[in-house]
């Protein structure tokens, strides 16, 4: 009896996965509330990870994730599927992230270091000579993330979406409302800038 219920649950889960996002959207539009719950279950972690990388703050990322789904819920009734549902969600998340950074820049809590300062810190961090490796790893992580934060807003968005969200160039172009060529230019510049900023780290390690 127990095995039967587990089997049914498993089948139901598999069925859920078989239903694509657009079909769930259609179901939601026809009044099936659970369809939105399923969409949320599918994307909440991905959207949260994306926003966490963007805003670097757990609570703010959680709040923005809620805002993304709130906006999506309100607008889904009139949404026309010109692109994938996931692309649309990332567009909402990206816009909220931009607003967040604008708001932070108007009311700055801290200021970013300029490139020279970051480079000096990178030179000073020689991981091979420091015995407290754990602390160094943590500091090195912070320095690398600071370098990522040095990218322009568009470069960072493009880099994050392609690298960590698995979006194709065309999907990023749809998400950010750019031409594919522009996305590529931003991506190339982002990687080149990271290479320049992080150069001291690998030079010290002699890769």
């Amino acid at each position, binding site marked *: 009896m127990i095995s039967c219920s587990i089997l049914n649950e498993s089948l139901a889960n598999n069925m859920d996965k078989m239903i694509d996002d657009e079909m769930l959207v259609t179901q939601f539009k026809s009044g099936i509330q659970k369809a939105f719950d399923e969409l949320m279950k599918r994307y909440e*972690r991905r959207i949260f990870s994306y926003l966490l990388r963007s805003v670097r703050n757990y609570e703010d990322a959680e709040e923005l994730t809620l805002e993304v789904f709130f906006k999506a819920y309100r607008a889904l009734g009139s949404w026309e599927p010109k692109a994938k549902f996931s692309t649309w969600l990332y567009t909402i998340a990206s816009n909220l992230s931009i607003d967040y950074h604008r708001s932070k820049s108007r009311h700055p809590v801290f200021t970013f270091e300029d490139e020279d300062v970051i480079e000096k810190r990178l030179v000073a961090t020689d991981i091979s000579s420091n015995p407290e490796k754990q602390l160094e790893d*943590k500091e090195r992580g912070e320095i*690398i993330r600071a*370098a990522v934060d040095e990218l322009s807003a568009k470069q960072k968005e493009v880099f994050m979406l392609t690298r960590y969200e698995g979006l194709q160039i065309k999907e990023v172009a749809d998400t950010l409302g750019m031409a594919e060529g522009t996305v*590529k230019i931003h991506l190339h510049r982002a*990687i080149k800038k*990271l*290479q320049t900023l992080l150069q001291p780290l690998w030079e010290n390690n002699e*890769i």
Partner: protein
Amino acid sequence: MTKCKISEAQVIDYVIGALDVPSAAEYRHHLTTCNHCIRQVNVLKHVLQLVDTAEAEITPNAIVLTDLNSKLYRRLAEEPLQNASVQSRFTDFISRLGLILQLQKPAVVGLLAVVAITITLLVVNPFDNEPTFEVDQTESANARIEQYHHQGIQRSMEDVIRNKHLRQSDEWGTVSQLNRVKDQAKGTDWATLANKHLKGVSSKL
């Protein structure tokens, strides 16, 4: 070592896997002979690996979003329909009303009954003895004065007729009474009647 002519963008595209299959195969073949490109590729791969590691540190493997679903629906319930059109608001109101009626039928029927009784009491007020319409007091007074005036003439006329039959010999007394009634009833039908009786009595004198 001479610097090769492969563009930086092409190297980046190769590292991030953005080259198409034939171009990637061609570049892989090029890498077997070009130390400059090998170094470039290694540097870029290392940069991306460093960033991947640093980014993975801040993104926990098991993300637990505390009750996001409940938070969303609570937020939706609290937030007014700011951007909704009048039509959608009306539709929303009707659908909510329908839902309430469906779910809370006995309570809603009871409530509606109470509302109906309250309105009836306020508008009709069956316990009130005062007339439900108001007459113009001035108009009513004039009508009453007119009515009493006619009643007075009628009483005088009746006295005249009664005296005429009781006192048949006193013709002068009757003529005198009819003349007072005629003055009293000036401008009314009673004056015509008094005049008619006066002519009849006068002819007998």
